[in-house]
């Protein structure tokens, strides 16, 4: 941060901040530039989802109930209490599907969302 002769410190730092802002702008531009290719890739995945009839992401594969959070078997082990601490680390990432209709659960939605 030693200023060169005749160069004001604020110029140096403003330039650095400007460079960082430019990088951020470049990242935004990069995201926009990648968008069409990514859209194609996502469309291909979506096509796969349609033709296979998938319902969930393959993100949490360590246990059967974690694999399909949207279709999870609501009474499997470690899931009895929505706030219970999980056996598996990714359980802390996968809460109960809150949005299931109350009728299907057999108890009120209030109890689930609490």
């Amino acid at each position, binding site marked *: 941060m030693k200023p060169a002769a005749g160069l004001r410190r604020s110029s140096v*730092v403003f330039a650095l901040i400007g460079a960082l802002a430019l990088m951020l702008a470049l990242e935004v531009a990069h995201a926009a530039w990648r968008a069409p290719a990514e859209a194609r890739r996502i469309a291909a*995945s979506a096509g796969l*989802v*349609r033709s*296979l009839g998938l*319902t969930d992401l*393959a993100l949490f594969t*360590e246990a059967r109930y974690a694999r399909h959070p949207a279709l999870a078997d609501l009474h499997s082990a470690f899931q009895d209490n929505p706030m219970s601490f999980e056996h598996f680390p990714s359980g802390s990432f996968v809460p109960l599907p809150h949005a299931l*209709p109350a009728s*299907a659960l057999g108890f009120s939605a209030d109890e689930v969302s609490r």
Partner: protein
Amino acid sequence: MTPFLRRQRALADYTLAALARRRGKNLALVVIFSVIVFVVASAMLFSAALQREADLVLAEAPELIVQQLVLGRQDLIAETEIAKLTAIRGVTAAKGRLWGYFYDRISGANYTVMVPDDPAMMPEPGTVAVGEGIPRARGFTFAQAPLFLSRWPGELQKFAVARTFDSDSALVSSDLVLMAESDFRRFFEVPPGVYTDIAVSIRNPREIATIVEKATRAMPAARFVTRDDIARTYQKLFSWREGLLVALAGAAILAFAIFAAEKASGLSAEEAREIGVLKAIGWDSSDVIAMKLWEGALIAIGAFLIGTVAAYLHVFGTGAALFAPVLKGWSVIYPDFRLAPQIDGMQLTALFLITVVPYVAATLVPIWRAASADPDQIMR
């Protein structure tokens, strides 16, 4: 430049000169702050990107899934139920789905075994199509290696791998093993006439609620999961977790803000004397406040930019390498995926409010306290 801007620039100059005197300490401050911003920003970008991917991909999921419940647990559903569903007006098609899990004792991984919905995707009997995670889990060394599945010691079934999905679709297909229906029923001993669940297509999405209502009357024991339920589950899953992470990081931000306030209020005798000198030579309180705000703003904005720029590189350049271990948990098959880069104004605004504002807020009162020193105290 107007005098106003020149004054601001000169104030910035002064504060930088003052900061440069304790260079190591102030750089450390920027670094710590940047790390906090980096963590929060990474969490935001990562979960937003995952959420978007889930939204777009799962928009093609079946409109409605019907599951049979027995004693509160999901059970196989009889083929006869399909007719009840197709009888409802507005239902285009209802198909039984066959899928389940297979625990592979060799690799210790859980596979999702499935019979594809679309006949065009159906593998020949004796062959399978697998996701990119399976060869990795099995340590396949050559392209045409067959897949051996064994349900109990001594049993062994050989499948030829007809197709491997590439990592472009890893997020949905990583752990899949697709089989022909005949293979599936034989290997898993699923009797004919039953399915895992039923996928229902509905022509007009506005009618879903009505159709669910009618179907509930026809099949009181069943559970209905609509596509919107799935999408909402994912949106909540990611934004809730992101929020929790941000709240945790909030503790870090709070600690940092307290530290900043402490730093700003616990002015050393030297700094207090300096502010006294500035006031004595003609700086007003508002000048001192503006100067100190520049200090805070330069540190905060610098850290904000560094943290955000690095977070983008981390999430989209390295595939969120630091988060992977948490998401991965104990799963053997973790998809090898890249997320679609995405960053928007709202994320940046929220991030800015949550990181920069507390820091500046915490320093305001101490700054004022320093600035309101008596100008003549320097002479006493």
